[in-house]
């Protein structure tokens, strides 16, 4: 039993040097102070989407990103500090002026900020005239009992 315990100690020591992906798991409040006048025809669509919190469920670099209070969910990735998620069109979510409703979310994490902050853009796929909506999201504190 002694030898395996020594092995365990060695593993715990060497594991300290490992780097795991940055944590982005949890609920993120999208900052309402973002200037939405920058959005053009798609402004209403994007504003309605960003009025609800952004929710991320993380497993390493693989993410499940939820927008608009759970109505839009997709898989995303985290590479270093760069987060990317592509929402396919829901069919009826687009408008005549605003593409097919498919969305692309790209953001960069500020891991030094406490709480952590995401800065990025939300763009409508297939809408050349739309200006991507810039946003800033702040991670909400986790509940004390459970963290995930």
């Amino acid at each position: 039993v002694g030898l395996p315990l020594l092995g365990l100690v060695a593993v715990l020591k060497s594991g300290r040097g490992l780097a795991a992906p940055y944590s982005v798991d949890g609920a993120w409040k999208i900052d309402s102070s973002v200037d939405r006048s920058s959005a053009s025809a798609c402004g209403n669509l994007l504003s309605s989407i960003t009025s609800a919190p952004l929710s991320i469920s993380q497993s390493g670099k693989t993410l499940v990103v939820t927008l608009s209070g759970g109505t839009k969910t997709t898989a995303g990735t985290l590479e270093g500090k760069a987060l990317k998620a592509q929402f396919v069109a829901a069919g009826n979510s687009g408008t005549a002026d605003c593409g097919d409703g498919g969305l692309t979310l790209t953001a960069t994490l500020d891991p030094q900020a406490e709480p952590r902050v995401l800065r990025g853009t939300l763009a409508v796929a297939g809408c050349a005239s739309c200006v991507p909506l810039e946003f800033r999201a702040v991670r909400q504190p986790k509940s004390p009992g459970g963290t995930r």
Partner: protein
Amino acid sequence: MPNLFILVLQVAVVLTACRLTGALFRKFQQPRVVGEMFAGIMLGPSLLGWIAPHFSAYLFPASSLGFLNALSQIGVIIFMFLVGLGINPKELQKEGHAAVLSSHVSITAPFVLAAFLALYLYPRLSDDSVAFSSFALFMGAAMSITAFPVLARILQERKMMHSRLGTVAIACAAVDDVTGWIILAYIVVLIRAAHSPTSIWVTLGGIVVFAVIMIYGVQRLLQHIFLHAYERWGHLSENRMAFMILLVLASSLLTESLGIHLLFGAFLMGAIMPKEPKFVRYVLDRFETITVTLLLPLFFAFTGLRTNIGLVKGPTMWMYCGLIILVATVGKLGGSTIAARVTGMPWRESAGLGILMNARGLMELVILDVGLDIGVISPALFSMMVMMALVTTFMTTPALNVICPKALLEAAPDKAGARPSSPPVGPPEGESQVA
């Protein structure tokens, strides 16, 4: 306020699915619990949510899951009390060299292998909010656990409780579970302390004081309150049964407020209850039916709702999952087999012990649920570990049929000589339903 219609509908659907699937699995000589675990997964996003997302969203709306969880946690609290009740530490001391060595190896082998695996999985399936030590220790605890109630049930069904293999297996499982829960308690304290203003040493000190009071103070009182009353009247009054439940709840609340989990208090209260076999059987009979038929299926359903096999996407993720199952099996099955062989058990019996120890069942789900709650494992890893629990439990009966068929055990007399009149730990013989 909960939507009562939805809540009652959920309970009805869960009960139906669990009973049907459990019965189906019994036809294949599997413990009912394997079928019920499977039913829970079927009701979650892995199947129902995948093939009928609108119906799934109607039946299990996110707003209702808190109530379902609360009900299921009450069931798990009572279940952990019953598991503690079935463990008799004094009887463990009677077991010989085989049990002592096998139990130590059956913990350390999967634990260390899991820690090595953590080196590989941590950068891939975790994130920087979890310390590597917490991640590795949790993986070790989760892989070294054994489904004590499932194991007891399999041994009862095969009439192996009094065989050498049976007594050693159940002793090892009890030691493994107690050790696993102590390690898990430490991890929970470690992680919660990081988010709490209270020093970890204050928390640990409080836990030690609580455990000492329970073991050396409350345990004696329980003999007077429950065992003596039972011996005098042959039963316990409703007031005493209510008081027993209150003690379980109070113990759970105390451990929760001390910074570990509700379940540790319930387990400890069960562990310090009087161990007179008839008394244990009597208490089990009073609690089992409602727990097993109503509350635990809700826990399986809630666990299934949190298990999303869709997260295990792509060959790489499935490779991680396969690796987890392989390491868990090699560590537990291999470690226990070799240890038993070293102590002089014949190969087949040694392998039989390894197979039995490899079953993880419901105990694994309980641990994983705690791990997901405290954030030490990610949702994808949770799903992989649930699959590992299912696979290792599912393979127990068929593997045992091949390695240790009943005819072989009946033909081979017990070489260790006289066996104890009752199993060393676990519920006294009878139709225990906890498994």
